[in-house]
């Protein structure tokens, strides 16, 4: 089955329905392994003690907060350029998930920051840019909710998503450009990771588990969205049939 066949929503529904149980199984296994590594294998930090365990939740959530927006940006290109029927479904489904992951990374970050930096919140470059990302997610969700026609809402949100994508490199490099409280990048670097393998491996497994969780939630939200649109079309058809309008409004 080629990827282009998935453009048909019905094929997408059957394919994702078949894929989901496998993903759920893999996700459960990954979380089991990751949590075991986190709590029983990974050593406590010699300075930070057990609070370093927050990292295994905080870092994957922050990665996903950005990956989710990247997926929305790519989906927006799909909406605007190729007019792919599932692209705006994907972008719309990703927005609340991305907002949730951003919120998780902000909350865990401030819980971690209290014992380490002595404060829940500083106006540091990385923290501020992630907060801006959170506000943009909420703004996008609000835009989707206010425009009634899903096709037009998708296009409007796609424009805004692409304009907002400028924020992504700012978040990624904010810790390198501005020398602030948040530590600089230590995993994805040109000269290799700078953290010890005993911490790196649990972190990578947890990141994989979170990514699988995101894929599951995203696919399920997309399925819901496709079904919701079908329901909307049916309701519109029923309504127009009742009042005797010859041409059905919904051309989806």
């Amino acid at each position, binding site marked *: 089955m080629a990827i282009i066949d998935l453009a048909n929503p019905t094929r997408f529904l059957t394919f994702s329905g078949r894929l989901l149980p496998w993903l759920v199984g893999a996700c459960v296994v990954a979380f089991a392994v990751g949590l075991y590594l986190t709590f029983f294998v990974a050593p406590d930090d010699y300075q930070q003690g057990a609070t370093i365990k927050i990292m295994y939740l905080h870092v994957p959530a922050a990665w996903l907060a950005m990956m989710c927006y990247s997926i929305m940006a790519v989906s927006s290109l799909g909406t605007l350029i190729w007019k792919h029927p599932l692209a705006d479904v994907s972008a719309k489904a990703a927005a609340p998930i991305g907002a949730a992951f951003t919120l998780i990374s902000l909350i865990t970050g401030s819980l971690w920051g209290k014992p380490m930096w002595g404060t829940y919140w500083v106006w540091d470059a990385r923290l501020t840019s992630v907060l801006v990302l959170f506000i943009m997610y909420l703004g996008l969700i609000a*835009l989707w909710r206010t425009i009634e026609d899903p096709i037009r809402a998708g296009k409007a949100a796609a424009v805004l998503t692409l304009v907002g994508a400028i924020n992504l490199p700012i978040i990624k490099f904010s810790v390198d450009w501005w020398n602030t409280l948040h530590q600089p990048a230590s995993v994805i670097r040109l000269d290799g990771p700078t953290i010890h393998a005993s911490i790196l491996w649990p972190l990578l497994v947890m990141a994989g588990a979170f990514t699988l969780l995101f894929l599951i939630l995203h696919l399920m939200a997309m399925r819901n969205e496709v079904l919701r649109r079908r329901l909307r079309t049916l309701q519109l058809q029923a309504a127009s049939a009742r009042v005797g309008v010859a041409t059905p409004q919904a051309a989806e």
Partner: protein
Amino acid sequence: MGALFVRELRLALRVGGGALIGVLFFLAVITVIPFGVGPDLNLLALIGPAVLWIGALLATLLGLDRLFQADRDDGSLDLMLMAGRPLELLVLVKCLAHWAGTGLPLVLSAPVLSIFLNLEPLAIGAVTLTLLVGTPALTLIGAVGAALTVSLRRGGLLLAVLVVPFSIPVLIFGVSASGAAVTEPTPFMTPFLFLCALTLISGVVGPVASAMALRFSSD
């Protein structure tokens, strides 16, 4: 294009109090601040540039929903869409006229208002210069939000929520440049040039994105 500029400028100046209402709002914001933080003149001088910038940002947001809304209501937006001219250019001209009608009065009133905030002459000059360079960026970024919410009946509030995150970099560099002019060790030129760059970038991104949004809102 020249005719469009003149038409937009006239509309911006004449409709409902026009330019003055923005300045009045600006004055109201500045007046409220000493009641909030206390009438300590040293403190006011310290936070003065930031207060002026935030006031200008709020006043800009207030007028933005008029940018495309009125033209859509009376149908002239559809005429502009069908005119065969590049829509990006039309949007840019509209933005410039809108800025000249609402942003420029803010810039001109900024020196007078900064006396209320006990600013030094040097700081007054710096704030006014950064506002002159920075407020076009606010209008151009806001145009994207205005174009996205043009078909909504009560889009003004949503517009502010959408636009504020994107205007944060302009605010950061505007305030840091005007602050740097007063405190000696930090250089003025670096944040100022960043501010210029932001205005130029939004001069490209703003019209292109809003033209795209306007096309989608019409079909």
